[in-house]
Every structure is written in structure tokens, then in C-alpha cells.
């Protein structure tokens, strides 16, 4: 994993000192809230419904044990004993006091972490495939690329006051686990079809929110060495021509949509041609320095299968169910990547206690080369576990209430904090997730239903990614009450699709029954081996409309 050099260290410490001074000036009245707000947002500090909220960056979701332990300490000493993993692979604390935040940032700096650019109209934390470096279908680990972009974009003077926030996701794999097509920029590591050279496919103009759009390819193949100059050209076109008169039309997706991808591409290429590439692009030595931090750990030479693992699996059905749902094939024989679900039945998606953070830290250190990952699905991952160790890890997770065997299943729900915490929300998300999770608690039934990602947002800003949920749920306000709109057929992956609205809004109480009916319709009509998403693609969302309509009719 990447380690700070003296420049990174000095930069982050300097920001902590600056923020300490800014808070002092706010508290002594030298800064009014209007002056202070942009400064605190630059450091990830929001004011939410009940309290301040601090969003801490986890670059491309990668954490080591010492960092997890420090997050646990912060949760315990300065917050209410827990944190919340977000859909940008970050972690949020819901109850910090303004006067404590400089100290919290200092503790983060001690473990090479910060909250810079987790808010505001700048380039946000770069997200990556959570199985980076692990997946067999990967051309290259995308994290050196993500780290390079992080360094280039951190406090970039030209791109610190963009028309609107800007989100970048990267993947090196064929299967898109990073949702690159619903980002402002998505980068796929690809091989040139003729030469076989490894380079980048650049997508632009994807996004969710009130105007959801699927990204378009702006450059089919970009040589690796040209990355930063090309990104600079693209950002410059957006920065100059993106709208600043209307924040709802300020994202790059609107610009791409309004002028068309051909015109946008032409402008980027013209700017790219004008730029002095060599003065912008990272020099190969620096790229190699960064890449070295992501060298594969010292894997052992293992047999693909482990006798102790197979015996434990055969003897213990709960462990077998966990393995089936929560392990992912590792490219190295004898290893597996393991998802630690933060979606216990009836729990708040993505919440993790300080004690649980410490358990994961210990397991990461002992069994996964001191590495854990946060996923945009609001779970954690231990990326490199020997199969022979899986049983021991599982037992430790069981003891910590972290062994829910539901990764990718119907209870593995993405949900934003919603109106239980968020000042922008129009309705609650967490209780909807809890009700659905409780309704579908039976593990046998969950496995029978198979993969079915439900995604819930508590407002149109779509932090819960509802547009790309196989079932999406959007909480709105209707006539002074919370109302939930159901969408069907969304997909964040390589077959990216936005869900279709199924019918009129439902009350919170009606949602679990509606989901039940939709699932029943799927089970009735699916072909052998057909997933929920494939069935919706084949039949069309309209085929499920009557399942929802009955619910509304009954409620009337």
C-alpha cells in the first residue's frame, strides 16, 4: 500500500494546522459561518441534522490495520462508538464536535489519513474496484493509477473551484465492480486491440443524482504515459464550459449531454494537443515509485485447494453458506478474497462499531497482509486470505457479529444515511433497508432468490445509487409524508442501465410487501439459472408493474 513521502506528510500536517487556525478564528468570531463553511467543507466537515459530520477519505478504499485502529479510537473518543462506510469507499463520523475536529484531523494525519476533498466542488476521493489486485479478470491493479490521480488532483490549483463536485472511478478488470459508467470520469485499463499495449479507455459524463446518465467513451485508447495531460485537458474543458449559473446543471454530464460527445471529444482533443504533455505527465520514475507500493504481497506457494478448508466446509453448513456468499476467487492459488458484510439482518447498512473495526484490523494484520478494503457497497473486504485460514477468520467474525453470509444477496442493501442523519434528505432510508432485510432474513430463501442488489436513497441526490439498483428505492416527500418510489432494472456494471420507475409512490409500510411481490413475480417467471437482473432485462420492467400496482390498489 501507498505510504506518504515527506511531501505528503508535510502537506497533510500543514492542512491540519491551517484548519486548527480556521476553527479558532471561527470560534472567536473572526470568521462568520458563510466564510467558514467552504473551509470546513474542504476538510470534509458538514453540518447535518443532529450534529456535525466528518467524512474521512479512504483513498480507493484501501486501509491498513493501524488506520482501522485509529478510526476506532476516533469513534470511541470523539464520536459515539461507530462509523459509517459510504458509497464512495469513505468513512463518516456522525457526531464530532467542531472544537474537537482539529485534534481528530491530527490523529488521522498520524496514520497518513485526512478528510481533504471529501466535499466541495473539487475532484473527490478516487474510487476503485474493491477486488483490485485480486481479481483474475484484471489486466492490471488500478490502484497505482488511482494514487497518481489522487496526487495530481490534491489541491490542484486549477481544479479547486470547479463548477461542481467531480468523481472519478477506476478499474482494471473486465467485470465492472467500480461503477465506472456512472462517474464523471470512469477509467478502464484496457489492452489495445491491435498492439496489445496496456492503456486506458476514458469514459465521461456518467452520474446519478437528479439527472442520471450513463457515461460515454471519450477516448477509446489512451497511452498510459499521456494520462495526466489528457485528464488536465478534459478537466479544463469542463472547468471553462461547465455551467456555474445553475448547480443542478453544473456536472460534466450536462455539458457532455448538451454539446454532444463528439463535440466534447473534439474540444478535449484540441486542448490536449495544445498542452505541453511532458511538463504535465508524471515521469516514469515517479510512476514506478508509486506502483512499487502496490506490488503483490509475498504470497505463499499454495495448492489451489486446502484440505482443512474443505473439511471445515463439509462439517459446518453455516461456514459453507458464508463461503458461498462472501468469498471471491483470488487470482493466486490457495487464496480467497473475503467480504465482511456490514449488513447484519435488521441493521443500518455500512455502520461498524469501534470494537468491530479493531477485530477487522487484527484479522487484516494476521491473515490478509495487513490490508483491508472499504467497498462502495458499504462492506469491508479482506483481500488476501489463505483458504486454510478462512475457517479461523469466520469464527472470529461470528464472535464479532460480522459474519452475515449475504454479500450480493437481497439483504446486502446499499442505503444512504437518509433523514435519520442527513440535512438534505427528504425521507428516511435506513428503516426501509432494515424492514426489507428483516423480511428476507431467512438465509435459505435469500440463496434461492440469488443476487439481487437493492439500493436506497433518501433524496434525489442519489447517494444510495438507487438508479442503478436491480431494485431501486427513492425516498421523497409527498403531502407531508415520506413516500417511496420503486425503480427496476438498474445496473452499475458493464451492462450499465438506469432503472425504470415502476409506478406511484408507496408509504414506508408498503415497501416490504411490494418488494415481496416483485420477488415472487421473478421467482414465478425466471428461467433456469436466470438472475433477477437478467429476468428484468428479458421481460422488461413493465412485466413487474402489476406486482406493484396490486400493492397500491390494496392500499387505496
Amino acid at each position, binding site marked *: 500500500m501507498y505510504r506518504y513521502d515527506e511531501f505528503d506528510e508535510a502537506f497533510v500536517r500543514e492542512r491540519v494546522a491551517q484548519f486548527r487556525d480556521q476553527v479558532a478564528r*471561527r*470560534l472567536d*468570531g473572526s470568521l*462568520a*459561518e458563510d466564510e467558514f463553511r467552504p473551509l470546513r467543507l474542504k476538510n470534509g466537515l458538514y*453540518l447535518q*441534522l*443532529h*450534529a*456535525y459530520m466528518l467524512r474521512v477519505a479512504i483513498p480507493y478504499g484501501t486501509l491498513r490495520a493501524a488506520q482501522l485502529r485509529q478510526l476506532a479510537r476516533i469513534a470511541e473518543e470523539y464520536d*459515539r462508538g461507530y462509523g459509517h462506510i459510504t458509497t464512495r469507499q469513505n468513512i463518516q463520523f*456522525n*457526531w*464530532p*464536535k*467542531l*472544537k474537537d475536529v482539529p485534534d481528530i484531523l491530527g490523529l488521522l494525519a498520524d496514520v497518513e489519513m485526512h478528510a481533504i476533498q471529501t466535499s466541495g466542488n473539487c475532484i473527490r476521493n478516487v474510487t476503485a474496484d474493491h477486488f483490485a489486485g485480486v481479481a483474475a479478470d484484471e489486466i492490471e491493479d488500478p490502484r497505482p493509477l488511482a494514487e497518481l490521480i489522487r496526487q495530481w488532483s490534491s489541491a490542484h490549483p486549477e481544479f479547486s473551484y470547479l463548477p461542481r463536485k467531480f468523481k472519478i472511478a477506476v478499474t482494471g478488470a473486465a467485470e465492472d465492480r467500480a461503477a465506472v459508467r456512472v462517474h464523471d470520469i470512469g477509467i478502464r485499463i484496457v489492452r489495445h486491440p491491435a498492439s496489445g499495449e496496456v492503456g486506458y479507455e476514458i469514459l465521461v459524463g456518467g452520474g446519478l443524482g437528479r439527472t442520471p446518465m450513463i457515461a460515454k467513451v471519450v477516448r477509446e485508447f489512451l497511452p498510459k504515459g499521456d494520462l495526466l495531460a489528457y485528464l488536465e485537458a478534459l478537466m479544463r474543458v469542463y472547468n471553462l464550459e461547465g455551467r456555474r449559473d445553475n448547480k443542478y446543471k453544473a456536472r460534466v454530464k450536462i455539458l457532455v449531454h448538451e454539446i454532444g460527445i463528439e463535440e466534447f471529444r473534439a474540444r478535449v482533443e484540441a486542448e490536449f494537443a495544445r498542452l505541453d504533455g511532458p511538463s504535465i505527465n508524471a515521469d516514469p520514475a515517479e510512476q514506478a515509485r508509486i506502483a512499487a507500493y502496490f506490488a503483490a504481497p509475498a504470497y505463499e506457494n499454495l495448492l489451489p485447494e486446502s484440505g482443512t478448508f474443505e473439511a471445515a466446509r463439509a462439517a459446518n453448513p453455516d461456514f459453507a453458506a458464508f463461503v458461498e456468499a462472501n468469498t471471491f476467487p483470488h487470482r493466486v492459488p490457495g487464496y480467497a478474497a473475503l467480504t465482511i458484510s456490514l449488513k447484519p439482518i435488521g441493521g*443500518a447498512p455500512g455502520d461498524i462499531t469501534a470494537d468491530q473495526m479493531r477485530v477487522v484490523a487484527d484479522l487484516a494484520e494476521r491473515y490478509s497482509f495487513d490490508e483491508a478494503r472499504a467497498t462502495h457497497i458499504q462492506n469491508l473486504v479482506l483481500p488476501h486470505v489463505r483458504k486454510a485460514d478462512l475457517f479461523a477468520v469466520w469464527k472470529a467474525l461470528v464472535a464479532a457479529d460480522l459474519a452475515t453470509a449475504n454479500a450480493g444477496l437481497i439483504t446486502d442493501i446499499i442505503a444512504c444515511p437518509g*433523514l*435519520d*442523519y442527513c*440535512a438534505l434528505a427528504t425521507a*428516511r432510508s*435506513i*428503516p426501509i433497508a*432494515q424492514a426489507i432485510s428483516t423480511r428476507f432474513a431467512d438465509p435459505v430463501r435469500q440463496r434461492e432468490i440469488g443476487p439481487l442488489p437493492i439500493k436506497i436513497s433518501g433524496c434525489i441526490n442519489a447517494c444510495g445509487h438507487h438508479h442503478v439498483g436491480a431494485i431501486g428505492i427513492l425516498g421523497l416527500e409527498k403531502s*407531508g*409524508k*415520506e413516500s417511496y418510489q420503486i425503480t427496476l432494472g438498474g445496473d452499475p456494471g458493464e451492462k450499465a442501465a438506469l432503472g425504470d420507475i415502476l409506478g406511484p409512490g408507496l408509504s414506508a409500510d408498503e415497501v416490504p410487501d411490494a418488494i415481496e411481490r416483485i420477488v415472487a413475480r421473478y421467482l414465478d417467471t425466471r428461467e433456469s439459472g436466470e438472475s433477477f437482473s437478467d429476468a428484468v432485462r428479458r421481460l422488461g420492467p413493465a412485466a413487474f408493474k402489476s406486482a406493484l400496482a396490486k400493492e397500491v390498489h390494496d392500499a387505496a
Partner: protein
Amino acid sequence: MAAPKLPPLPVILLANDLLEGEVVFRTRAGWTRDPRAALVVHDTEGAERLDTEAKAAMARNEVVDAYLVDVALDADGLPVPRHFRERFKISGPSNRPDLGKQAEYAVPGKR
């Protein structure tokens, strides 16, 4: 300058404490953390005074995000915000009864 648009009466004034972020309520004497102790104002002049006080308290750097909230009165005469957003704001996360005001106070309107 046009008179500020006020919410329907009666109203209370709530805000977040600058230092700690916690939700606070205006009383006759200052600010309280107890939702039961919020000053309820029933007349337009009183609401305008409260609105002026909201701006002044923000200018004095005591609180942030201060605004008037229209309320109904429960059986005990205590103020319950009419909108569900503020009912959550004065109570705490609905999935965590151990956190927020609901953990400390018998929040009006909360079953």
C-alpha cells in the same frame, strides 16, 4: 426590505450549537438542549422577534442554521414540529433510540 416569510403559527426557534453541533432551542433566557423547554410563540410579532433573534444569534456566533419551525401542541402543551423532518431533528436517528435527544429527554411527539 420585505418582511421575512414566516412559517404558520405557533412556532419555535431551533438551531445547532456552533461548538458542538447539537440541536438547541430558544427560550426566553437563551438556548436550551431540552426540546420540552422551547419557547412557543403564538403571535406574528413574537415570531418576527424570534426570527430577528435567530439572525442575531448566528451573527454572535452562538449557533448555526437557526430557523423557525411551525409546531402543534401535544396533550401536555409541548411543541411538536408539524413536519417530519424537524420531528427527527429534535429527536435523533429513528434507528438508534440510544442516540440524540431521544436518549436524554422525553421528546414531545415521540411515542
